[in-house]
């Protein structure tokens, strides 16, 4: 709940921090007395505003990892495409990777801009039933760097949840950056009123990845987000010439399978390394429609079905779906 007022100094710890009003950075800030008195530490009213705003969103799913570069954005994008292939469903994809927003490129939406209206920000529509929001749409150049400390990133995430006019949505998918820090805490806190159905955790087979992913799973337990399951991405590479399989990222400690057994979590599936996935992402096209019969696409679709099944069996009592 670290919030930085517009007139705060550079190293503002955030109005809800224990250091609010007391840190050396607070000297001279016009809000110092308010913060030091503790008045600013009341629960953020945005949480209730967001709860009300998102009553029209049936299911909220986070895509997490802990490790970078394992395929969170790739999976978030293709999960959204797969869910949106049912015309009767409305899908929303929110990218809260503030420093490295990959979703606009992967969804073929580079260069698009966000419009503001009376009812808030309009997300960018890829299809009639698939809306996307990312800080990428607010940057004017591909070279623009978002060099923001935690509190400013948190403010942006709050705006994305409170001020975007999502409308009636069946699934809100939230793509995250790696780690267990400001972005992750903020998403959990700002959605604490609205609720999160669960998290999908992405990993690659090697221990260097799993060791970060175990921390992410602990994070989920700590903040009480149910884990829908784990996906092992980049799981083996089949040479297009000789058809032999190589483990480029070897599961030296048993891969996601053993980790899931140890932690009693479902392994939703394994997706092989396919150069066509990376190419589709670079070109902003859905891999699922480009090469639907590939083993990777089949693996993805099976995983998506498990997520649909989880969501329908975990609906709230008054939810007709």
């Amino acid at each position, binding site marked *: 709940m*670290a919030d930085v007022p517009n007139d705060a100094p550079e*190293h503002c*710890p*955030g109005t809800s*921090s224990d250091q609010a009003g007391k840190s050396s950075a607070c000297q001279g800030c016009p809000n110092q007395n308010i913060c030091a008195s503790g008045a600013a530490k009341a629960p953020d009213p945005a949480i209730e505003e967001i709860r009300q705003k998102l009553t029209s969103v049936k299911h909220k799913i986070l895509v997490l990892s*802990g490790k*970078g*570069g394992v395929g969170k*954005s790739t999976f978030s994008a293709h999960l959204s495409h797969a869910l949106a292939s049912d015309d009767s469903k409305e899908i929303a994809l929110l990218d809260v990777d503030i*420093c*490295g927003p*990959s979703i606009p*490129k*992967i969804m073929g939406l580079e260069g698009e801009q966000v419009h503001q209206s009376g009812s808030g920000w309009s997300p960018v529509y890829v299809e009639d039933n698939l809306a996307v929001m990312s800080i990428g749409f607010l940057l004017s150049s*591909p*070279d*623009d*760097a*978002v*060099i*923001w*400390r*935690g*509190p400013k990133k948190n403010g942006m995430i709050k705006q994305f949840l409170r001020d975007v006019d999502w409308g009636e949505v069946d699934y809100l998918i939230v793509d995250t*950056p*790696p*780690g*267990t*820090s*400001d972005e992750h*805490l903020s998403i959990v806190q700002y959605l604490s009123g609205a609720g999160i159905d669960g998290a999908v955790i992405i990993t*690659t087979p*090697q*221990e*260097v990845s799993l*060791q*970060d992913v*175990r*921390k*992410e799973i*602990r*994070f989920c337990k*700590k903040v009480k987000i149910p884990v829908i399951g784990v996906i092992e991405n980049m799981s083996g*590479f089949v*040479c297009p*010439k*000789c058809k*032999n399989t*190589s*483990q*480029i*990222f*070897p599961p*030296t*400690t048993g891969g996601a399978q053993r980790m899931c057994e140890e932690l009693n979590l479902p392994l939703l599936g394994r997706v092989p*390394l396919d*150069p066509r996935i990376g*190419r589709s*992402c*670079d070109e902003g096209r859905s891999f699922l429609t480009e090469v639907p019969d590939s083993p990777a696409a089949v693996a993805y679709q099976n995983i998506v079905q498990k997520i649909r099944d989880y969501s329908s069996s975990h609906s709230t009592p008054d939810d007709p779906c």
Partner: protein
Amino acid sequence: ISINGLAQVKHVVLVLSGKGGVGKSTITTELALALVHAGKKVGILDVDLCGPSIPRMLSVGKPEVHQCDAGWVPVYADPQQKLAIMSIGFLLEDSDEAVIWRGPKKTALIGQFVSDVAWGELDILLVDTPPGTSDEHLAVLENLRKHRVDGAVLVTTPQAVSTGDVRREITFCKKTAVKILGIVENMSGFVCPHCSECSNVFSKGGGEELAKLTGSVFLGSVPLDPLLTATLEEGRDFLQAFPESSTYTAISQIVNTVLSSLDA
């Protein structure tokens, strides 16, 4: 008596990306090992607080970090003390415990890692970073300002989704006046061990194009090598184990170019 902080550190090089999972920690580790083999005294400062990969890659899992008069004593990867490391990985009781910290707390610890570690005499201190352009990166630069930052090595994979983030990191370097020593294109092609066919698993050439586009030095390409991944998993020295490999050649060339630009 050790002198604390960076007083006796000749060169400081950041390893940055912007993009996650491209091989920053891998490249940092291999650069460090290559420099040690070349007779240098090297330090690695791992400022990835949420996902510290360096300890495992150098198989220094759970040593204790001691305090001396001059500050924290770094952990040495070798008995000759040619490779010193500091990482939050050494401070965690339980390696699965998540470090769930907001920016200000991360900033504070990184300040301590820079100023309060008794690095002693080093030829080069390599700084491994998490992806992004946020608290950790700003904290490291603010604290290193009092000493020096010779420059940064940027790591990317060939695809556009990666170079797209690295472009932003280049802007970060320009804005913070960090000299870009060059760009490494990692995971650049995979040679099938069965039939020797080369597959461009993560596309091809993006790193070199990015270097041209931004007027940066292209340091070289490192292939996708399962032997490299496996030795890192086990914390073994890849350069000693596989000196005949093309990966070894690629890494050596990168190290030589970086050393020349530091000595220039």
